[in-house]
């Protein structure tokens, strides 16, 4: 029992360790990064990725996968850079509509027993198309209040760090500690038994997909607040980044085994990895490749630790 306990905790610690090592490496190479401004530059884009990763995590908790989150974040960013500024009511309605569509997708996937990979694959086309309809060419402007929030000069540490910590803690409390959170995770672990106990799987799926839609909205707004202008293609890579972030953070694809804190750390690690590579003055051709290598190394470490633990037990 204790060995399994230790293994679980080391697995939870690993993302933190990876983040720390990466941060130290960056500081070592670029001591100036060890400042308020430097940290802000490094982790600037972490918040939207963290939101998207949490959104993905909700979906993964109930054994589904969202391949449309990137396109959806792009759609939100486009709405944020246009309607939300010009016609706030329409903008809010559009974003609320997005959340409702997500909840409806959860219902559709559950009721018709559809593979979420394909449904969300189709949705990625839909969101991209809608984004293009809202904002045909890159441009637009984020509302001033959004800009103000995202560039808020918080004391001691940059806003991103506070916001990420708050995000991790809030989602952790909601999903890992609350009474209904246990039911939601139970749906990932053994849906039939949860259903037999009298809970509605339909509700659970709709809640989780709705939450994914909501956090996708946060991701898109955070992104457009940082970049100030929108673009339909702005966040397409978020789909893969968010999946990688969840897994990097100790989550698993099936069985409802996830970790919100880990997911946020995973997202920050991925962001930092990109910054780290630019500091390395690596040939730009190989930057993407190096991200792949980092991903593999961290995962390999996790496997190694698990295996050592298993042998020790």
């Amino acid at each position, binding site marked *: 029992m204790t060995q399994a306990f230790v293994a679980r905790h080391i697995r939870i610690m690993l993302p933190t360790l990876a983040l720390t090592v990466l941060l130290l490496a960056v500081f070592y190479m670029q001591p100036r990064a060890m400042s308020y401004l430097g940290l802000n530059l490094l982790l600037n884009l972490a918040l939207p990725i963290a939101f998207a990763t949490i959104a993905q995590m909700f979906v993964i908790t109930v054994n589904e996968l969202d391949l449309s989150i990137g396109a959806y974040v792009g759609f939100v960013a486009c709405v944020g850079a246009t309607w939300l500024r010009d016609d706030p009511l329409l903008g809010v309605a559009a974003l609320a509509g997005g959340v409702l569509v997500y909840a409806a997708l959860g219902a559709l996937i559950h009721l018709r*027993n559809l593979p979420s*990979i394909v449904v969300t*694959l189709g949705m990625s*086309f839909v969101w991209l198309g809608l984004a293009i309809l809202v904002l045909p060419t890159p441009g637009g402007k984020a509302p001033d209040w959004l800009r103000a929030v995202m560039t808020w000069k918080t004391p001691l540490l940059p806003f991103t760090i506070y916001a990420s910590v708050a995000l991790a803690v809030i989602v952790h409390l909601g999903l890992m500690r609350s009474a209904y959170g246990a039911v939601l995770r139970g749906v990932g672990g053994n849906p039939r038994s949860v259903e037999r106990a009298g809970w509605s799987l339909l509700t659970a799926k709709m809640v989780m997909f709705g939450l994914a839609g909501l956090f996708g909205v946060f991701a898109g707004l955070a992104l457009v607040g940082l970049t100030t202008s929108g673009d339909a293609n702005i966040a397409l890579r978020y789909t893969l980044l968010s*999946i*990688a972030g969840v897994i990097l953070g100790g989550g698993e694809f099936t069985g409802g085994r996830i970790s919100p804190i880990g997911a946020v750390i995973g997202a920050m690690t991925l962001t930092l990895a990109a910054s780290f590579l630019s500091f390395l003055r690596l040939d730009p051709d190989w930057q993407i*490749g190096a991200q*792949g290598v980092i991903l593999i190394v961290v*995962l*390999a470490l996790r496997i190694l630790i698990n295996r050592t633990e298993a042998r020790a037990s």
Partner: protein
Amino acid sequence: MNASLLQRLAAKPWLWAYLGALAIWLATIAFTEGRGGGDVLTAALSFATFSVIVAIGQMYVITLGPGNVDLSIPATITLAGAVSMKIMDGQDAMILPGLLIALGCGVGVGVGNYALIRLLRIPPIIATLSSSFIVLSAAISYSRGIRIKPPPMLADFTTWIVAGIPVLAVAAVVLTAIMSVVLHRTIYGRTVTALGQNARAARLAGLPVDRTRFATYVLCGAFAGLNGYLLSGFSGGAALNMGSEYLLASIAVVVIGGTSVAGGFANLPGLWGAAMLLFLLVTMLNTYGFGAGVRLVLTGLIIIGVITLAGGKRQAR
């Protein structure tokens, strides 16, 4: 429950793809009042060929069971295209070595993918995603954005059309038929479907589990490599983004074609119906004069519509 009913149910998923493709084609030529219907089909066959080639590999991988998918296909296509074009350097004499090198690139990526999955126990989605980053970097670094024309004979062969039917499409149909026999009538194929249904039972039944998984990822890589080679010939050279559309397309074609995403049940004829459907859909929307936004939205909605109609199948656990 009798066998014929079950057979009908089993046949249903891929039927939808063909019906959808037919309906869309009819809608298209209804708009043009019958003009260009044949040309549309020729074009659809040409482009469907490339989707089907990668989808065969993807289908075998998906059939291995939940969680198995190859996201490195686009990068492999690009790498194989870039490397083979550069090596052939437009000379007809190098066509065969070029093909072997393209296949070699694919096999190499497949071996790498499986090494990550088996040795490091990384989930296939993440393993193939990570490796695709590396492969793509290699392709970028290798080609340096220079576009080299394919050998004339390769270009001619890949664009050769006889009586409105692309020769390459015929070859690909033969390939599909062969892979269908492999799936149903060889121990390898049976093992793939067995693994997708119950991996533990497959191992206990004494089937060569590891070898089969390995072969499947290599096979998928090889098909992607083949696609990169042919596509470069077809479109006048390799481009860095040439593979990108095949990530979603390969998965969509497999699933719309009636293969179970949960694994254990595969379906080859459906691949053609699905690939034609996806191409004809874009053609139809272009014909109707829709902009890119509407076209994307409708494409997405139709994918969801098809899977909703065809779906409701058993999912894993």
